[in-house]
């Protein structure tokens, strides 16, 4: 008989015994910032950290007469030298500091637009590669979670083969779910437009469309939670059944409608379990940090306190690095077990179905 508490306990045991899945678990669920792994040369904007207190002096305010033919390099160097001589950066004429000339900013508008455009392209490129990696990781993770649950053999190579086989299905599904979530925002947009129009034409009644926000928000909240459950079922259906994305999504809803109570129970129990783990983890970390702080404050064993603090920090970071994939993998097993239990209800195994049918339609001879 299925039990949510037993499911979670068993899932943690399975996750602990199948550590190979941890290596793709975090990528599958959390995604990956591509920039860190690809070795792309510095993608940081070097100029974004400029000191905002430095005031640039437009050369027009330089003491050099602009009507005289002066080479640009000399002008710039002369201005820089003058700045150095005056002892403060940005000062060009005597001790007066002039604000940035608006004409300078206006001429830089094409450059600013180009900067924003280029940065957007870089973000898009990284996002595309991250999406591909996430799809591959899901393709590698979920089929092997099912294999692990059925106690079938799998290894590094089967992770790679599964990822290459299923990544297309998963990328379509990720985009489909994203579209569904995006569309769920449309009612808010509609109410916003109606409120805007109402505020313009009938300001006294603008509160009516705003009151509609409450039920819409409740619907939005419930719908997105349900969508999360459907996603969990569909991620497994994608592997088990050879059907297209839309059919898989519909089947996910079918599974949720079959076991809505158990799905909600599992989600709540999971949040509680993780909350307790984090409370213990951060509680211990916080207590130790406080004790070390007290030691240092009282100037008792400062060096020992700092060393101990550092060691404990390292230990906790290591625990955190291990705990995250363990929790993610255990969560995947928990939903897989619920999925398989629901599947047995909807589509009982052939031998069970036969036994049930046989007991329903016995021949006359056996009824004696």
């Amino acid at each position, binding site marked *: 008989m299925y039990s949510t508490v037993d499911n979670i306990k068993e899932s943690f045991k399975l996750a602990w015994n199948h550590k190979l899945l*941890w*290596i*793709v678990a*975090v*990528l599958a669920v959390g995604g*990956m910032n*591509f920039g*860190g*792994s*690809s*070795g*792309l*040369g*510095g*993608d940081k*904007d*070097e*100029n974004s950290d400029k000191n905002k207190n430095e005031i*640039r002096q*437009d*050369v*027009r305010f330089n003491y050099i007469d602009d009507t005289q033919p002066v080479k*640009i*390099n000399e002008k*710039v*160097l002369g201005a*820089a*030298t003058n*700045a150095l001589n005056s002892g403060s950066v940005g000062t060009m004429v005597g001790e007066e500091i002039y604000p*940035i*000339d608006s004409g*300078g*900013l206006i*001429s*830089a508008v*094409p*450059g*600013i637009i*180009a*900067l924003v455009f*280029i*940065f957007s*392209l*870089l973000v898009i*490129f990284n996002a595309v*590669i991250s999406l*591909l*990696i996430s799809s*591959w*990781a899901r393709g*590698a993770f979920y089929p092997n979670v099912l294999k692990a649950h059925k106690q079938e053999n799998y*290894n*590094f*190579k089967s*992770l*790679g083969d599964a*990822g*290459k086989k299923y990544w297309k299905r998963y990328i379509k599904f990720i985009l489909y779910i994203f579209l569904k979530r995006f569309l769920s925002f449309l009612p808010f947009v509609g109410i916003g437009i109606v409120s805007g129009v109402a505020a313009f034409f009938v300001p006294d009644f603008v509160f009516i469309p705003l009151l509609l926000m409450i039920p819409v928000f409740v619907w939005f909240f419930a719908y997105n939670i349900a969508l999360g459950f459907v996603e969990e079922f569909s991620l497994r259906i994608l592997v088990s059944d050879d059907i297209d994305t839309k059919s898989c999504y519909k089947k996910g809803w079918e599974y949720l409608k079959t076991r809505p109570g158990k799905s909600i129970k599992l989600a709540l129990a999971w949040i509680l379990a993780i909350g307790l783990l984090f409370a213990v983890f951060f509680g211990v970390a916080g207590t130790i940090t406080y004790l070390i702080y007290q030691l240092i404050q009282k100037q008792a064993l400062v060096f020992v306190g700092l060393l101990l603090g550092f060691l404990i920090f390292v230990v906790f970071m290591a625990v955190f*690095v291990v705990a995250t*994939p363990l929790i993610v993998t255990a969560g995947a097993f928990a939903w897989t077990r619920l999925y398989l239990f629901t599947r047995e209800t909807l589509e009982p195994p052939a031998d069970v179905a036969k036994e049930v049918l046989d007991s329903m339609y016995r021949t006359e001879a056996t009824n004696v």
Partner: protein
Amino acid sequence: MSDNSNNYKTGSFYRRFFANQLDQLINVSICLILPLLVAISIYSAGSANLTGSLINSAAVFMLVMLLLSVGCFFIMWIFSYKYGGSVGKLLFGMRIIDAQGKYMDRITAFWRMTAGYAVSAGFLFLGFFWIFRRKENLAWHDRIFDTKVIKVGSPLWGMLWMVLLTVFCVLATVFSVSLFIPTL
């Protein structure tokens, strides 16, 4: 690669590490130093107003850096499936081969470079240190995509290029700073 790929030894952790560092140096030289030099020359030669010149040179820097970064990614991918490894690996005398002893196909090369490296780096780079674990010198991304890195030649060219590029990067940085500071 031929059927006698089993006769070659696999590349050790240190050789592969330095090959990777050479790749990073090449990326930095092309994607950071060159755009920086271009941007600083535009800034130094620049127009009458400093603000516009600064932003325009920053835009040029970002544009060149983006194009070269994306270009470096594709070059690394093409080199991997066509010639058997990134530029760093080729200069250090190594090749990446699959289970059949041939160079990887383009799909495997792409996934190995993206998802494979992401998996190996995911656990504080434990996937790369896994090379120490067995005689075959296989990282996680090698085990997942059934590839191995073999030694086919001497690492001398790689070491030479590492020294040259390091000197180039240091000199270029000093030159850029010396160009930039007087204009402040």
